[in-house]
């Protein structure tokens, strides 16, 4: 028998807390790499860094099954509309990590075809600076995001008609 045998038969807590606890430990990121930073995202998911320790290893190829978008790399003007569409295809609740200098602010590429920061068209939860940031920084960002998710209230996230999502 495991730990549940030691617990009292009834636990009292807030629903928000239980939902937040469940959500934070099963973040499913979308498999979506743009440029150099995507390699560090791959490294974070592979052997040495092992993102699975944080319950976030289930990279889904389909945006419809994921709740975290890691924007890893330079967003160009040609790509921006598609990034936005992928974000819209993700079901609520969803979060965004801007991973790397280009996703945060355009990085060194201040030119005719780059978007100067993904926050111009997406709501970003965590910014990760660096060019590219190390895999540990992605893990740190996920821990930060987990803190945020755990403390989220239903009223923070109403649906399009203003109703609370439970």
């Amino acid at each position: 028998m495991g730990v549940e045998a030691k617990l009292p038969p009834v636990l009292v807590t807030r629903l928000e807390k239980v939902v937040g606890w469940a959500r934070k430990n099963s973040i499913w990121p979308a498999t979506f790499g743009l440029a150099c930073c995507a390699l560090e995202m791959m490294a974070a998911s592979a052997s040495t860094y092992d993102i699975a320790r944080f319950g976030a290893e289930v990279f889904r190829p389909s945006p419809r099954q994921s709740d975290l978008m890691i924007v890893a790399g330079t967003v160009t003007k040609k790509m921006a509309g598609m990034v936005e569409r992928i974000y819209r295809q993700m079901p609520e609740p969803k979060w965004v990590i801007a991973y790397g200098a280009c996703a945060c602010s355009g990085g060194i590429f201040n030119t005719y075809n780059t978007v100067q920061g993904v926050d111009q068209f997406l709501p970003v939860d965590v910014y990760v600076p660096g060019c590219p940031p190390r895999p540990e920084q992605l893990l740190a960002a996920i821990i930060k995001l987990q803190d945020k998710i755990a403390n989220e209230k239903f009223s923070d996230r109403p649906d399009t008609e203003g109703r609370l999502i439970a």
Partner: protein
Amino acid sequence: MAETRNMVVNMGPQHPATHGVLRLVLEIDGETVVGVVPHLGHLHRGLEKLAETKTYHQALTLTDRMDYVGALLNNLGYTLAVEKLLDIEDQIPARATVLRVCLCELQRIASHLLWLASHALDIGAMTVLFYTFRDRETVMDLLEDVHGARLTPSYIRVGGFPEDVPPVFFEKARAFIKDFPSRIDEYERLLTQNKIWKGRTEGIGIISVDECVQYALTGPVLRAAGVKWDLRKAQPYCGYETYDFEIPTGTVGDVYERYLVRLAEMRQSLRIAEQALDRMPDGPVMLDDTRFTPPPKQDVYEHIESLIRHFKLMSDGYKAPAGDVYMSVEASKGELGYYLVSDGTEKPWRFRVRPPCFVNLQALEPMILGRMVADVIAVIGSLDIVLGEIDR
């Protein structure tokens, strides 16, 4: 009789097997591909235009971000082109040249390991990824000891290196070279005789030698078709003619042989790196030329003349003589060339990259027409494309 029409399938730019943001519009008849229109440019960052606004020294950082899998090789090609333009290519210190060879071969191994991971993952052999990433991290740690960054080193500079490698590098590199052949054996055990792997790769994406030359394919794709051609042998740079190594080739030119060629290349890279370590001469790693290269860092702290020289070089840059040069190196994907046009000022008038991936990807169409949709994935993987370099 019912009318039948071909179906159009959009693949990418968000697709796990297109290695970035490549988009293909496939026209399929049942499962057979009858037409393909590739759409590029989803990562076009205007790198060439941006480089033309930077000094020769500053433009180096942009080369890291093209083929970010093998950034040191990109640095090397650019640096050699600028050195040729400045006519100082014969004056590079011996230690710097040998170190360049050693580091670039390690980088080539890292690049091939990443290719093997993603290629095998695309085809469905997931285990390989964890094995190759374990060893890639070893190389990454090694290179990180040397230049501080994991992917974007900017370490090979015009004239040599900004700093010598730390002493611990030699010890670690030797340990890696000793250990790594057994790791390659491990990958071979996982894949080479694997029935599913062979079924998915043998006889797929065949391209003949004539077509390779017509499409200007280079690198492992050309060698797998049976041409014994490697820039390190054909037009040696950095003293590659003095190293003892072989050019692995194939005979058929299918996806499976490209896999075999790349695996054999990793073993050859190890041989070259070991020879470079054996012959590592002592001495400076940076050319001391007041016109082009900054003084040693310690001097900058202690002498006002050095400080001024450093400041002038870093803020103004140096003037390059008017003219144009083309210099290419054998990158992990093929011939990576830089065509620089100078108008006599501090900034390149034209900064052109000859991207191996861009040219190789053009042969995708003849390789996949008439094949199954699943073969498209195998062929893309075998071309080893990096979108940062294709779109620039």
